[in-house]
């Protein structure tokens, strides 16, 4: 029931906004929809906490601690982003970068995107998961190309082709999965694609087929996670799309894609009886972290900068999942949460910063503290948080990941530390001059919405020093599910 609500609200909203999206109150409608989704998600969470994992609608949907916490996270960030994009888009419009028609497209596609992600998270059917991922891709392609500038078109096209091809590979992986499972679960009906069933029999799945399937799924969904060297679409898409979209791309879509990868990894682990999938993930993770941290040094565009930092953090999370084990999984899940909260907060602040100075070039953005202190502090604190500075929660997860790495794979620790240090130098040296110093920019036409920024950072800060036991328990359950 709750699932229906969770999926229904955004779909309805998308349909509604497709009609009224151009009206003045469209943004409020969007916010209301997201709020409703959030409440539904909260209900769902309550139900899971009370009754434990559940399947619904003849097993087409499956909710366990792992995905329900992602559902909650997605709904939350979706809501705050909607809140943020209300004034942001208004300012964009008053800067004359958007027409009402585009706004309509934006609002409806935004809701559709949310629906797609929630579907991908909640479904139990690997096929549907694929469908949902494709849906998310399509909707975001339209969002990225919203401004219709050369840059945005190019970015969207690259995004479309790379992720489209990737997704296609994932589909083939799914087909192989089906092949492997068919003999055990019977081709007729749906059984062979239901994750729960697959998970039940994963031990007997044909290893070679599963290995191949996992490779295709990993490359397919990994493209959307932004794992190097499949990441090339990510910075362009983040930099050229409207900022709220960058926020949800970084904050949510990457998580969802990673979620898909992990679901597949669980199966592959069971089938292959080897650490192969884990090692693949660790390899991707390390490569992404290191490459991204060096990419950071050459950035001039603020949104590109933080896009690369997303790649870096996705790399860290992937590495952690690759290591597996209760602590590493716990840390990875925690890091997912922390990263999406922090990164979206940063993008909110960065978005307003670009509006203040009228450009995304970092050497043009100056003196945020003097012209608009809250934007400045938001950016500074967010930046420090994402760099893993205590007492922010990102440090917590990085700390756990590092000590686990030290125990299980000592050789990897120095690599990670070097990457972290390089990233620190790169981002912080860019951050400081933007926040400090003097400026002659003019204040914004509408007052910016920085409440979301500080809500996110507040949560991150709290998680740094105190993780509520319920939440911790929840993470622990999810970590157990992932196992490895």
């Amino acid at each position: 029931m709750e699932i229906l609500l969770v999926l229904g609200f955004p779909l309805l909203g998308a349909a509604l906004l497709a009609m009224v999206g151009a009206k003045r109150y469209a943004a409020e409608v969007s916010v209301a929809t997201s709020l409703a989704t959030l409440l539904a998600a909260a209900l769902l969470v309550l139900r899971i906490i009370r009754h434990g994992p559940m399947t619904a609608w003849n097993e087409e949907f499956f909710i366990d601690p792992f995905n329900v916490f992602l559902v909650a996270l997605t709904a939350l960030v979706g809501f705050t982003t909607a809140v943020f994009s209300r004034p942001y888009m208004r300012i964009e419009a008053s800067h004359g970068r958007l027409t009402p028609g585009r706004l309509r497209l934006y609002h409806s596609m935004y809701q559709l995107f949310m629906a797609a992600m929630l579907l991908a998270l909640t479904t139990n059917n690997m096929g549907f998961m694929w469908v949902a991922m494709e849906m998310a891709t399509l909707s975001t392609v339209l969002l990225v190309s919203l401004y219709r500038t050369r840059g945005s078109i190019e970015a969207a096209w690259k995004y479309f082709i790379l992720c489209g091809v990737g997704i296609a590979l994932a589909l083939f992986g799914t087909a192989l999965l089906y092949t492997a499972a068919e003999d055990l679960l019977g081709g007729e009906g749906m059984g062979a694609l239901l994750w729960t069933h697959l998970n039940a029999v994963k031990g007997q799945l044909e290893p070679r087929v599963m290995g191949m399937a996992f490779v295709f799924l990993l490359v397919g969904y990994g493209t959307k996670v932004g794992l190097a060297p499949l990441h090339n679409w990510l910075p362009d898409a983040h930099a050229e799309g409207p900022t709220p979209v960058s926020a949800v791309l970084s904050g949510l879509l990457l998580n969802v894609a990673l979620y898909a990868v992990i679901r597949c990894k669980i199966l592959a682990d069971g089938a292959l009886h080897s650490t192969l999938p884990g090692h693949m993930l660790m390899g991707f993770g390390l490569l992404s972290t290191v490459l991204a941290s060096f990419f950071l040094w050459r950035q001039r565009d603020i949104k590109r900068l933080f896009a690369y930092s997303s790649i870096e953090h996705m790399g860290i999370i992937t590495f952690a999942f690759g290591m597996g084990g209760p602590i590493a999984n716990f840390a990875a899940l925690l890091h997912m949460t922390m990263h999406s909260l922090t990164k979206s907060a940063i993008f909110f602040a960065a978005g307003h910063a670009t509006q203040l100075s009228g450009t995304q070039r970092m050497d043009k953005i100056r003196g945020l503290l003097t012209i608009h202190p809250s934007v400045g502090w938001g950016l500074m604190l967010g930046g420090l948080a994402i760099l893993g500075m205590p007492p922010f929660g990102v440090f917590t997860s990085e700390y756990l990941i590092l000590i686990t790495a030290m125990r299980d794979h000592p050789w990897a620790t120095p690599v990670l530390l070097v990457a972290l240090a390089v990233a620190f130098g790169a981002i912080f040296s860019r951050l400081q001059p933007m926040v400090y110093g003097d400026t002659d920019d003019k204040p914004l036409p509408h007052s910016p919405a920085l409440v979301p920024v500080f809500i996110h950072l507040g949560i991150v800060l709290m998680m740094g020093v105190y993780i509520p036991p319920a939440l911790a328990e929840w993470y622990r359950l999810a970590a157990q599910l992932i196992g490895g």
Partner: protein
Amino acid sequence: MPPVNMATQVVQMLAGALLLISFAMLAERRSRRLLILLVWQGVVLVTSTVLVAASAHLTHLYYSAALTLLLKVCVLPLILFRLMRKLGIERDNEPLVNVPTLMLVGLCLVIFAFGLAQPVTALATTVLRKTLGIAIAVILLSFLMILARRKAFTQVIGFLSLENGLFFAATTTTYGMPMVVELGMALDLLVAVFIFGIFFFHIREQFDSLDLDQLESLKED
């Protein structure tokens, strides 16, 4: 080991045809002919699907065959034809690497694909699974085609032939995906092509050509 009946032999023959077509697409320069080849691919796909359905007595495969016919043979090519005429792009377009090299690489890919599928086909329960190698080969070849072309339009065609390869793999190796899923996939594909269409216009109005060499401004330096 079920007896190798007529249908399966035909299916395997069709699989060969599919492979042939994808090689042809790899070599083909003219967008128009590419499109025709794509249609042929669709036709082969449909027939093979029907045959599989007939041999395995699976009703839902008939539906999916119908769906394929509708989508891959009629609707999509139609859209693409109209787009092509609107945008006036029948001109030649040279691949990034010259054709013989492409052929060579393609050959290696086929060998690789067969090698890859070999263990699976070895313990295949249905004869049809033997075609898995070919399916993989088709997929890799279309991938190669996508990355070897420099026109947006051809990339789309490559993308579609990739989809065909996937579909072929799905039908032959597993008697098709569950119906609902296939519907979803079909829907996605349709939307995708629509969006492609939209994009062609955007690209053209921004870059006044569909040449992908234009789309190289976003990069690190």
